[in-house]
């Protein structure tokens, strides 16, 4: 082998050693191998460094909090961890006890978790402790809910290192909690609803509230949840219900209420009104059913029908006219008896407008639009025209009530034509009686005044003549006596006649008669009469009016003289275009009107009252004890 100078070694190679050459070759090979190994190692190191850097970057960027603690002391934290724990920088956390960041409530669990990790102690172990929910403490002491997992990390120096991965799930937990609360409330609501509610999926009951349990008579132990809805439905309904369920599933729309027969767990059947709604429970399609027991309602409706039919029967049987009229004024019902009064059959009556058949006076008074409270009664007397055009009097009792959920007017009318006619006849007869009475008095008065009176005058003339033709003093004196007696007699007869009925009333009128009467009254009783008659200058009225007015005043003044103990009274007559008002007043002790009225029933003040009322007028007495009295009367001038 040639010797070569290898600069690297700096020695000249001699052929001294063929053995050195092999050793050099061997060294060369070893050096080359070492270099290669070094390169490889440095590459591995670089890779390792790159990988570490990559991992570190990954760890830094991960939104999960990552921390490593060795022997209980935090040795590494990533930015996410710093953020979650609300620290300003890594320095605040590094070097501190890891347990310090675990909430006391969770410490025990955390310790256990770590223990289990290290009992395994294999490099390749997947996290033995799966994600757990624990509470951590932030830097500022605020507890947070976290989801945490831990890995053992193998360190060269065999220290116990744990890598902790955690996520802040506080918000998530809160939402979950809210959702649970809402669901709980929903269930609570359904439970409290007075309506029975059931939720079923394809017929299987998954929920039944208290009311449903009660209606279906489920005892506490009975779990409806193991039953099908059909168990509680009457067999006749099954087909119908199946179709309904199908429809809901297809259309996703609620169904209108239906009446169905349900069966309680004790076998009782009852009528229920059910409503079905599409529903979702845990993501699956279900049906929510709300139902209520309408047996009572059904009973009431039937009772109502019965009562209405009883009403109709009664209405038809009554001999009076019964009618129902709607809010709009249309006749809803009229009974058969109406035909007797009106001549129309009920069918005919319903189809006509009844307004033209009511008397105009009644319509004029707006009775039809008067407001009546429900249950309040109104009473009307009016005339209606029947089919043949005759006017009949009817007495109507009318009220408003509710029938079939609507406001209706209910009236019962009785034909009072006969009664009214009788009343009119009686009234006319009473008037005739009074007239006859007055006429009789007038007749007597006239007889006395004219016949007897005149005869007395005749006697006077005769005596006068006799006196003229007598010489004898004795005769003269006797005749003179006779003349005196005659004069007295004449005066008495005149007084008597006038007391029956003053002729002035017919000849001169009311006013002169009253003036005469007051004069006479004052001279007989000493009571002054203050007379005021505005607007009344001796107009003449009908005989009935004048005589009645006179009698009222005559009677009232007599009353004053008898009871009042006064020396003055006042009389006022006021005439208007259709009536006269009369007042007789005194300031005396007053009297008890009832006593006076009752004492002399046929004449006197009560008689006056009747007479005035027969004429369509009024007479009132106000006499508070000790406050004087006022008698006031109104007499209409024209008969209605």
């Amino acid at each position: 082998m040639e010797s070569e100078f290898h600069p690297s070694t700096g020695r000249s190679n001699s052929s001294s050693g063929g053995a050195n050459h092999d050793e050099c070759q061997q060294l060369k090979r070893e050096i080359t191998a070492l270099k290669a190994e070094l390169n490889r190692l440095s590459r591995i190191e670089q890779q390792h460094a790159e990988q570490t850097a990559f991992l570190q970057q990954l760890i830094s960027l991960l939104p999960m909090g990552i921390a490593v603690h060795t022997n209980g002391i935090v040795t590494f934290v990533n930015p996410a961890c710093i953020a979650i724990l609300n620290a300003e920088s890594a320095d605040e956390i590094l070097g501190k006890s890891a347990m310090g960041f675990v909430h006391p409530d969770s410490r025990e669990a955390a310790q256990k978790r770590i223990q289990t990790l290290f009992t395994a102690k294999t490099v390749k172990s997947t996290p033995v402790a799966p994600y757990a929910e624990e509470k951590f403490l932030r830097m500022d002491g605020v507890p947070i809910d976290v989801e945490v997992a831990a890995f053992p990390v193998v360190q060269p120096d065999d220290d116990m290192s744990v890598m902790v991965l955690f996520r802040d799930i506080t918000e998530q937990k809160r939402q979950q909690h809210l959702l649970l609360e809402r669901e709980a409330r929903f269930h609570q609501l359904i439970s409290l609803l007075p309506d029975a509610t059931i939720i079923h999926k394809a017929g299987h009951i998954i929920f039944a509230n208290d009311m449903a349990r009660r209606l279906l008579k489920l005892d506490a132990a009975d779990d409806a949840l193991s039953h099908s809805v059909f168990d509680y439905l009457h067999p006749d309904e099954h087909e119908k219900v199946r179709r309904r369920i199908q429809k809901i599933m297809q259309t996703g729309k609620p169904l209108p209420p239906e009446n169905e027969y349900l069966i309680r767990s004790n076998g009782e059947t009852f009528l229920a009104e059910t409503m079905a709604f599409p529903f979702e429970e845990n993501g699956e399609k279900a049906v929510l059913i709300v139902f209520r027991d309408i047996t009572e309602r059904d009973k009431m409706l039937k009772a109502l029908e019965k009562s209405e039919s009883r009403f109709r029967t009664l209405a038809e049987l009554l001999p009076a006219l019964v009618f129902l009229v709607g809010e709009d004024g249309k006749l809803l019902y009229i009974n058969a008896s109406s035909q007797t009064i009106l001549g129309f059959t009920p069918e005919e009556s319903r189809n006509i407008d009844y307004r033209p058949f009511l008397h105009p006076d009644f319509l004029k008074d707006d009775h039809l639009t008067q407001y009546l409270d429900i249950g309040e009664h109104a009473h009307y007397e009016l005339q209606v025209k029947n089919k043949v055009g005759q006017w009949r009097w009817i007495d109507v009792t009318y009220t408003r009530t509710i029938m079939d959920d609507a406001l209706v007017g209910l009236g019962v009318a009785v034909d009072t034509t006969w009664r009214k006619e009788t009343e009119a006849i009686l009234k006319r007869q009473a008037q005739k009686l009074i007239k006859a009475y007055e006429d009789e008095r007038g007749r007597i008065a006239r007889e006395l005044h004219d016949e007897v009176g005149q005869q007395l005058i005749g006697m006077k003339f005769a005596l006068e003549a006799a006196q003229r033709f007598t010489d004898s003093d004795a005769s003269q004196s006797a005749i003179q006596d006779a003349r005196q007696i005659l004069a007295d007699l004449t005066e008495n007869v005149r007084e008597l006649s006038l007391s029956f009925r003053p002729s002035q009333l017919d000849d001169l009128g009311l006013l002169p008669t009253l003036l005469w009467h007051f004069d006479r009254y004052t001279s007989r009783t000493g009571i002054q009469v203050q007379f005021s008659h505005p607007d009344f200058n001796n107009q003449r009225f009908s005989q009935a009016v004048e005589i009645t007015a006179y009698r009222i005043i005559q009677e009232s003044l007599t009353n004053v003289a008898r009871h009042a103990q006064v020396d003055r009274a006042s009389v006022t007559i006021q005439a208007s275009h259709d009536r006269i008002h009369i007042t007789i007043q005194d300031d005396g002790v007053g009297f008890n009107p009832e006593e006076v009225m009752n004492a002399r029933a046929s004449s006197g003040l009560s008689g006056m009252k009747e007479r005035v009322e027969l004429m369509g007028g009024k007479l009132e007495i106000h006499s508070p004890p000790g406050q004087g009295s006022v008698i006031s009367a109104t007499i209409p001038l024209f008969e209605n």
Partner: protein
Amino acid sequence: MSHPITVYIADDHQIVLKGITSVIQLDPDLEMVGCTTDSKKIIEEVCRIKPRVLVLDMVMPDIPGVEIIRSIRQMRSLQTRVIVFTMHKDIGYVAQALQEGAHGFVVKDVDTAYLIEGIKTIIHGEQYLSPPFTQHQIKRYLKQLQSGKDKEDVLERLTRREREVLIFVAQGVTNNEIAHNLGISVRTVERHRYNMMKKAKFRSEADVTQFAMRRGLIT
């Protein structure tokens, strides 16, 4: 002596007629020229006979005395004066007769001398009243007829319309309704109302109602 005064007598009672006739015939200054008991005949006879005086009973059947007096008065050509001779002693009759045109009024139950005196007085154109009547009484009576004695009365101070409105207001009737009832305009009603309240010194509707109730104008 000049002609006797011609007298026609009308009275529906035969006895009275005879009595008057004999009294008249006793007086030389008077002459009865006719008489009747039938009121329907009076005018005709009077027109025919033309007596200077008619002695007339006010109240005869068929034709009322006032009508006869009025008819005679209306006949200007007739100079006949009427003296009423009657049973009625009420001043009202006197006033009525005189108003209608009679010249004298004598009641039957006083001495017949008054009748004679009356006949002789009225031919001179004077009015004659037998006792118990006086002209003063007649004046007083006529005044009473005109209005009430009480001038102090509130009602007297008001006009007729105002009184009518008063009654309506006392009853609570609205102005519109009053106008409708009386057939006048609402403005006129308001005017009457205002005046009425003012004259009567009413302060409110309640005052009006109270007053009307007290006076018995409303019940």
